[in-house]
């Protein structure tokens, strides 16, 4: 496991520094202790030896197998010894206590908090409160100081309060750290998703690109065969060639859809806007689709007034949008039914309503059908990758317009394309 190893390395550095302080403390105790007759030489020797012993113990502990496995537990153990050693030192200076004693105590509470969280802070504060109480009692007995219970109560309260404050601070820091980690995690996740999405659309673009040369060859060969220039075809051969041709075109449309999708996702579309007669564009698209509709026995009714509305549009792309709506109506409406294409000009712009008398779209699917690669439940019989509507909506939005679904009066689906009016309205 990597995490404890890092923690262990940090602890080794940390405790090694402390060990130098412990050895330094021992040297100072041995050198200066004899000059403090109140302490007593036996205490000086014992305290110095204690510091050296602790340093030795820590050095050994840091090299043990147990430490490598449970660095946190060993660190807690070393901290507990620290508390005892400091308490003993306070005890030694009991005759001559001053504010540094309390500062050392408070520092231990802070260290406990930072190193071991709330438990460390509370543990250290309780320990120091007990130490102070014992020292005060000892001092009263040995040196004849007044006991002053209020002062003891005050100091104990200060220690407990410091523990409480430290615990709060540590918890707050923990919350902040957790928040930052969650934020970092989320950002990393978002970036990963974005990278994945880009990779996917790059892949799709690359793939549909690679389709194109083989498609050229297949489609071209079929076209030449069907022209009968290389030689006459039997009816059966002609029929097979036509079927192959139809399906090559489907593949072509699919690869073109994938490419257009990738372009939309990369924001790589610059509309070639020109001012055009809106009705004219719709009429051309409808005329292009009449043959397909006739194959299914359907009729298309077109309701639009020429030269009435000008719009600013990328002709090829808007044709594609209208074509998608009309094509879908032909695909999904029953045979021998009527498809109505109605155009209107109102305050929100120019709208094209493509109405069919098919099964319509279930309520819960009305937004989903505009998502890429999604197809309505009722469309299983009809081919398609589920890109058309998604592309159409994106292209409509690039024009500053929209596509929405409505229920058609008397059943069926109505898809409404709206685009803003051109400069000359």
């Amino acid at each position, binding site marked *: 496991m990597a995490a404890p190893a890092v923690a262990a390395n940090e602890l080794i550095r940390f405790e090694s520094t402390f060990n130098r302080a412990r050895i330094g403390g021992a040297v100072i105790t041995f050198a200066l202790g004899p000059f403090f007759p109140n302490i007593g030489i036996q205490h000086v020797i014992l305290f110095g030896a204690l510091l050296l012993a602790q340093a030795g113990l820590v050095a050994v502990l840091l090299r043990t197998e147990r430490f490598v496995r449970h660095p946190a537990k060993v660190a807690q153990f070393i901290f507990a010894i620290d508390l005892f050693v400091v308490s003993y030192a306070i005890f030694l200076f009991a005759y001559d206590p001053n504010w540094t004693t309390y500062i050392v105590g408070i520092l231990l509470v802070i260290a406990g908090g930072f190193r071991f969280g709330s438990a460390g802070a509370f543990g250290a504060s309780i320990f120091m409160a007990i130490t102070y109480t014992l020292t005060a009692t000892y001092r009263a007995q040995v040196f004849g100081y007044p006991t002053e219970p209020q002062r003891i109560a005050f100091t104990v309260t200060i220690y407990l309060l410091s523990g409480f404050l430290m615990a709060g601070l540590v918890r707050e820091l923990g919350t902040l750290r957790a928040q930052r980690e969650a934020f970092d995690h989320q950002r990393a996740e978002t970036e990963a998703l974005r990278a994945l999405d880009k990779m996917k659309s790059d892949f799709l673009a690359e793939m549909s*690109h690679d389709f194109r*040369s083989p498609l050229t060859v297949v489609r071209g060969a079929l076209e030449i065969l069907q*022209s009968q220039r*290389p030689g006459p075809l039997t009816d059966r051969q002609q029929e097979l060639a036509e079927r192959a041709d139809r399906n090559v075109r489907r593949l072509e449309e699919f690869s*073109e859809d994938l490419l257009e999708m990738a372009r939309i996702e990369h924001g790589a579309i*610059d509309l070639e*806007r*020109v*001012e055009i007669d809106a009705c004219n564009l719709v009429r051309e698209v409808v005329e292009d689709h009449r043959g397909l509709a006739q194959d299914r026995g359907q009729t298309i009714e077109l309701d639009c007034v020429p030269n009435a509305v000008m719009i600013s549009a990328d002709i090829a792309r808007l044709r594609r949008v209208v074509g998608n709506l009309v094509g879908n109506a032909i695909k999904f409406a029953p045979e021998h039914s009527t498809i109505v294409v109605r155009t209107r000009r109102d305050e929100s712009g120019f709208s094209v309503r493509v109405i069919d008398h098919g099964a319509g779209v279930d309520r819960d699917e009305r937004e989903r059908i505009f998502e890429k690669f999604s197809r309505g439940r009722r469309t299983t019989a009809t081919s398609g990758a589920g890109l058309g509507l998604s592309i159409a909506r994106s292209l409509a939005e690039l024009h500053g317009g929209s596509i929405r679904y409505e229920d058609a009066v008397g059943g069926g689906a109505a898809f409404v394309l709206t685009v803003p009016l051109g400069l000359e309205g």
Partner: protein
Amino acid sequence: MKVLVVDDEPDVRALVATALGYGSGPVEVIEAGDGDEALAQIRDARPDIVVLDLALPGRDGFSVLEQLRRTSMLPVIVLTARGLEHDKIRGLELGADDYMTKPFSPRELVLRIQTVLRRSGPQDRRPGSIERGGLRLDLAARQVHRGDAEIRLTPTEFNLLVELANRAGEAISHEALLTKVWGPEYRTEGHYLKVYIGRLRDKIESDPAAPRLIQTVRGVGYRLALTKD
């Protein structure tokens, strides 16, 4: 007619060759599989027109076109498989006469080859001249002068300028210009017009970034100003 077909895929080259073979009139097809070979073939075999795929191993189609245009006005039709707008525009800017996006119909390619050859070949030379905006267009010699200085234009650039000059002062729609200069099948292909208007401006405007002669009429098309420069 001699056609050089440059594509790294032998099947595509063979298809184009076959389609050209079934077209009208005798055609000699030569092939190249990469950019360097294409340049060598252009130098040695002297084709009448080049069909150039943009995605070639090593030296790509753009680079071939750039190299070629330094010395020659040989007609070039580029093939692109990516269908990206900026590829088309870049191809036209580098001097391609036409582009087709794969997958294309061989019949359409044959038609386009004929159109491009007709457009860049000897033009019908009407007599007379037009003077507009400080320019003198000599229709018979197909030359443009500003004062005594001749401005050198390609055949397509010249045709476009004549269209604008014939109806100077009037806004002419994108569609009308595309139909007149390139042909009805190009009427929605705005890229051509954009690129060629840019080139004309570079050649005839004193400040192409702030054009005064060829004015953009937003949402409609272009207009050649009547006023003198």
